[in-house]
């Protein structure tokens, strides 16, 4: 399945968002997620199924002004 991960095409067989985060090594990481422009809380990642062409954002703290 092809998805758009942080703006780039990405192939994955993860069936849900939680699985995708784990495969990327973010299971214990300080990250937040969104799918197709909407925020998905950490507790809802496993219930969030992924589909072809989904747009996934995985973000972390960064410097800001």
């Amino acid at each position: 399945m092809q998805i758009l991960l942080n703006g780039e095409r990405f192939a994955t067989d993860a069936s849900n968002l939680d699985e995708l985060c784990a495969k990327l090594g973010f299971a214990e990481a300080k990250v937040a997620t969104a799918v197709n422009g909407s925020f998905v809380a950490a507790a809802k990642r496993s219930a969030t199924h992924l589909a072809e062409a989904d747009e996934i954002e995985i973000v972390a703290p960064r410097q800001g002004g």
Partner: protein
Amino acid sequence: MFELYGKSFTSRMLLGTAQYASPDILRQAVKAAGAEIVTVSLRRESARARTGQGFWSLIEELGCRVLPNTAGCHTAKEAIATAQMARELFGTSWVKLEVIANDDTLQPDLFGLVEAATVLCAEGFDVLPYTTEDLSAADRLLAAGCTVLMPWASPIGSARGLINKTALRSMRAYFPDTPLIVDAGIGTPSHAAEAMELGYDAVLLNTAVAKAGDPIKMAKAFAQAIEAGRLAFEAGLVEPRDMASPSTPVAGTPFFKIDHAS
């Protein structure tokens, strides 16, 4: 002391965490500023670099209250989703709400800003909106539930200072009881002092410190200017006048004659 969303602060200098040459310089600049609130953002995390994880450790170490921004968002929808991610990520309901109108001026999109603020306030966020001096937008933001307003001094990163001082003065007079923070465009400590002399409650800046030759020394300079400006406001400034008014007593001036013509 001043209050923002029920929290008291001593320092009236809010400092951004971006653009420093190194994490250590950032750490020292925050310390030199005596800042109690620092702004942060969130960005896409790479599975390889994991940049954000290290930055989070640094932020925790600073021990400041974090104010996450929604920098780079151009629509209310983007800003709302970014704020929601930030709330979970940073564990705070505070958000510096930015909805940007265009990339050249980084001017706030006031329509999108009000739209996003309305949704976020209803969701329990403590919204600190990055806005302009526009009083009607300010009224809408307060009606939406914001209890703090953050008008720009000039475009973000421009270092131009208070380019519409009259409007900022009007805003202060129009909202005497609302905490007002000048955010963006501050270039020099004198700009910051000027904002404080107008009666603004605090100043938020980043570039002027981070990109200074010596950011640590500049952080200290800003802290002192902000404190001086606040003291001056509290002390009460004299009114400017067009004609001279001698400061030395006139009475008793030697050789003084009533009629100089004689």
